[in-house]
């Protein structure tokens, strides 16, 4: 690539043509502070934190969007620049609800960090504040505009990454605030509850609806038996909340911590992931053989399901009728498990730990109570962040906990289940089972590498016992839209499609630990976290869902066979058309 020669603070530097000053400075090991900048997603130069001096330019320029040019002379740390950045922060603080002591983002707040780094401890400015507006209408999150810095990162991910675009800037000038069109409640628009806005937010303006108190109360209730399930991706991310490197697999410590919190059973959603594969693979084979609606599309991701209902309602018949693994786990817990353990399902409290805020919405969907009305499959869905807060509250020294194992019977799982947490994982797991089911032969090689990786859309074609099976995988709703538009227009002839609501799948879910933009912009979170899951799969003795021994027991005891009448009663669900506006 062609390079240009510039100087930064007098130091000569040769950098690729087309770089921004911010990128060029990083090549010279100079970190310029940013706030609104999200690489490729929000490059709008709005917050003005990253201003630098370019010789000849009028005023200071935003380095995050200003392209370098041959001979450019840049200064990044003159007194004028430092003063400008400080004034900027002071102005933001003057319109900010400074309740840092009790803020959920304290110590993990980008605004707080900038103030600390730039030694801004007070603001010279005081005056009117933009009227505070709190939207807590949605099942999964709360928006508190009094802590918003109007960086627009949430708006950018909602529209550019997720193609949902239900939030934007309302009013203008000092009255500007983020909200839905006409300040409609979030619960009344086509929000898919994915929570990507929350993980993009630099401050405490956006957060999941905290349900830890409900869990603490249940744990303290002597009449309740409280069990917990953890989604496949949690083991790959929870460590980040305790300062461990991104991509550390903390399954053992996680189990130990949950046990110490007082859960009566520490189980693995992976078991239900295996169960999902049994049902979904059966459904797929059935649709192919019986001429059902194809392509069949996975239904594990509640964000995706809601998106489909709002934006692609015509494709609802293509959705697998399988409940998500979270819900399958709850359904089995409150039926087969409760009976086996001799517990009244009404006294069984199922908590799930999910990478996902949409799971909070999913819990309350219709048709998600296998044990009968008033007895939901899952009682509370927590995010990774909430369980981390519970572990902190309990004073557990997470990093130094011993590694422990899941409880029996609902802790048994296979490698096929653990890769559910990464985009392409469900597809690969389903293929492992479907291929063996159709051919009746054991696979030589279990890795379907074509569907792995963080690319937004992946396609592959497999010869399964003489039958050509075309599959596609998409994650993130913008990619899904691209793929599904082809399906809708009859330009694609896939039989099976996996879609995950969040880009990269659950490892990058909206409920995961929040990494600041300074990390997100330069580290591929998705790949690092997914690697932990693929490594675990490779090292597991059982790697195919149909080999899960507990499932064999459940089918023998209770469900009969995949797709049976009982299985449909307990493990399958239906969907509703929703409007776009």
């Amino acid at each position: 690539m062609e390079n240009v020669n510039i100087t930064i603070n007098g130091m000569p530097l040769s950098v690729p043509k087309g770089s921004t000053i911010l990128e060029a400075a990083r090549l010279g090991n100079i970190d310029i502070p940013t706030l609104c900048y999200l690489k490729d997603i929000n490059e709008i130069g709005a917050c003005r934190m990253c201003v630098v001096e370019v010789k000849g330019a009028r005023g200071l320029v935003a380095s995050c969007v200003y392209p370098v040019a041959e001979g450019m002379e840049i200064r990044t740390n003159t007194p004028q620049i430092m003063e400008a950045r400080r004034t900027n922060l002071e102005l933001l603080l003057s319109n900010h609800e400074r309740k840092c002591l009790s803020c959920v983002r304290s110590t993990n707040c980008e605004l707080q960090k900038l103030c600390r780094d730039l030694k801004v401890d007070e603001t010279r400015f005081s005056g009117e504040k933009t009227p505070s507006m709190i939207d807590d209408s949605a099942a999964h999150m709360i928006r508190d505009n009094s802590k918003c810095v109007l960086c627009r990162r949430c708006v950018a991910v909602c529209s550019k990454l997720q193609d949902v675009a239900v939030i934007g800037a309302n009013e203008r000038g000092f009255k500007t605030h983020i909200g839905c069109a006409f300040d409609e409640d979030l619960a009344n628009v086509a929000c898919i509850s994915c929570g990507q806005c929350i993980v993009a937010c630099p401050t405490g303006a956006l957060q999941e609806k905290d349900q830890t108190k409900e869990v603490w109360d249940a744990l303290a209730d002597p009449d309740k038996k409280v069990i917990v399930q953890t989604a496949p991706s949690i083991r790959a991310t929870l460590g980040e909340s305790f300062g461990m490197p991104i991509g550390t697999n903390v399954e053992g410590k996680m189990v130990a911590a949950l046990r110490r919190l007082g859960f009566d059973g520490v189980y693995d959603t992976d078991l239900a992931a295996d169960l999902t594969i049994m049902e979904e693979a059966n459904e797929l084979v059935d649709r192919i053989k019986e001429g059902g609606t194809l392509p069949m599309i996975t239904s594990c991701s509640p964000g995706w399901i809601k998106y489909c209902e709002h934006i692609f309602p015509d494709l609802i018949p293509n959705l697998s009728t399988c409940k998500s693994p979270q819900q399958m786990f709850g359904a089995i817990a409150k039926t087969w498990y409760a009976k086996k353990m001799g517990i009244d399902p009404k006294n069984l409290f199922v908590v799930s730990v999910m990478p996902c805020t949409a799971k909070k919405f999913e819990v309350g969907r219709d048709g998600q109570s296998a044990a009968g009305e008033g007895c939901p499959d899952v009682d509370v869905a927590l995010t990774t962040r909430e369980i981390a807060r519970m572990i902190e509250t309990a004073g557990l020294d997470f990093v130094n906990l011993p590694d422990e194992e899941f409880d029996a019977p609902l802790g048994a799982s296979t490698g096929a289940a653990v890769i559910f947490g990464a985009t392409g994982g469900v597809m690969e797991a389903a293929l492992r089972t479907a291929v063996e089911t159709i051919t009746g032969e054991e696979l030589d090689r279990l890795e379907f590498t074509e569907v792995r990786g963080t690319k937004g859309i992946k396609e592959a074609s497999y010869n399964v016992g003489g039958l050509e099976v075309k599959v596609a995988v998409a994650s993130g709703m913008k990619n899904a839209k691209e793929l599904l538009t082809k399906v809708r227009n009859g330009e694609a002839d896939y039989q099976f499609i996996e879609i995950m609501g969040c880009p990269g799948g659950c490892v990058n879910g909206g409920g995961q630990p929040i990494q600041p933009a300074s990390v997100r912009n330069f580290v591929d979170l998705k790949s690092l976290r997914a690697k932990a899951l693929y490594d675990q799969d490779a090292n597991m003795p059982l790697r195919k869902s149909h080999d899960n021994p507990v499932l064999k027991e459940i089918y023998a005891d209770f469900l009969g066979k995949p797709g049976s009448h009982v299985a449909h009663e307990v493990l399958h669900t239906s969907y509703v058309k929703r409007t776009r506006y």
Partner: protein
Amino acid sequence: MYRSHVLVCGGTGCTSSGSGRIVEALEKEIAAAGLSEEVKVVKTGCFGLCALGPIMIVYPEGAFYSMVKEKDIPEIVSEHLLKGRIVKRLLYSETVKEDEVQSLSQTQFYSKQLRVALRNCGVIDPENINEYIAYDGYQALGKVLTEMTPQQVIDTIKASGLRGRGGAGFPTGTKWSFAAASVADQKYVCCNADEGDPGAFMDRSVLEGDPHVVIEAMAIAGYAIGATQGYVYIRAEYPIAVKRLSIAIEQAREMGMLGKNIFGSGFDFNLEIRLGAGAFVCGEETALMTSIEGHRGEPRPRPPFPAVKGLFGKPTVLNNVETYANVPRIILKGADWFASMGTEKSKGTKVFALGGKIHNTGLVEIPMGTTLREIVEEIGGGIPNGKKFKAAQTGGPSGGCIPASLIDTPIDYDNLIAIGSMMGSGGLIVMDEDTCMVDIAKFFLEFTVDESCGKCTPCRVGTKRLYEILDKISKGKGEMEDLDRLVELANYIKSNSLCGLGQTAPNPVLSTLRYFKDEYIAHIKDKTCPAGVCKELLTYSIDPEKCKGCTLCARVCPADAISGTVKNPHKIDRNKCLKCGACMEKCRFGAIVKN
């Protein structure tokens, strides 16, 4: 052939003072007098002298009737149009010297003007393309398409020295050459008709009075840069301009001046209108294009500049209405002709919207380099009520004020910048001694606070805090340190804001501080407003020598703050007084004193 033409101003100003009814009455009376075949009534664009509207002019005599009333029409028709006797008492007094009717160009208002951009305004029927063509319309486009290469067009515009009339004054030819040099499958030509400076209305007037000139110029620009599609972004609050421009586009299309293969040259050009909802920031070029694209009108960082990546990501030329209005004349009369007008670095003429404390409010077009004194004292007819000139604000909320000491500054782009103001789009507001400069700064800043789009921090929060400091000072609660704070914050906002709106928003504060610091100090130290404007700092009292005890003031006071008995001097209770001024307005003896 008609023997007489009656041109009635149909601009927004005269329309709101009732020129529509004048036209109806005229047509009715003319028909009744049986003159319909002999006298033609034409509804034109703006004449410029809005203060005297409704205005009409009768040719061939050139009799200029001002402030025409419906009841005068029968007399004008029967006397002037039928019998040929001009009704002198109804003429604009300036045009009658020693009982002789003078031409309009001899009046103080018009004699110093030079109409280039406005040359057809008030002259032709803007809804009739043939009238435009009769005044050399579309000749320039024909010349460009049949005799000139795109490069020659650009060279001509460059050589003319034409600079953008929208505010910043960027050389138009250079802008076009950048867009021409960009390689793309599609390019665009845009027209900024989102005139938003309070008090400025020259772009509206051009579109109302001579819409074809903009269409012609945009087609020329399209040819020069290689664009086949144009957009005019115009605010929806300009209904007459929108209507006339729509009609003009339709007529131009019918006659083949727009569309495919114009003049058989193989050049295609189409034009569409996009309505703006009235946000001031949409006058900023990137915000304007974002709005055309269908998004919230917010600016985006530059570079890339529109000439490289503009509307829909394609190379785009954007000029404002007045800039375009100069282009066909430059093509026809040559770059040298245009460059012969004006100053060294500012060529041609500039239209100003004259407003505020001045006799002749309205539109004036003057050669660059005319002094402020000439505009105010001669063209503008001076300041009413014998008051003294204090300052003039140019550039609207982005500009600054020019104090009396600089009234002889020749007005051009660079001189205005040098004295802390700017040309802007050409609003010129005259202020007299009764104007408080702190209050003026507050007024303009309030406008920008309100019109900030809210995208970048300095403009969104910074201007608000700046306003709050001014507000504090105007209420007598300021401290001397606030003056430093104002300057620091103002300079920060200027150098850190994302777009021109924020970068210029503090100018009214900085320029009033520069020239009228004493007034600020008076508000802070003495807690007084020397001009007697800032309400919180005023006290009303009654001069017992002058008060006759008529009780009128006590009766109009809404706060019961005035007490007294009949025929005895009254008194104002300062604790109760709301400072509304109602008493002062009503007192027939001048007994109420404000200080």
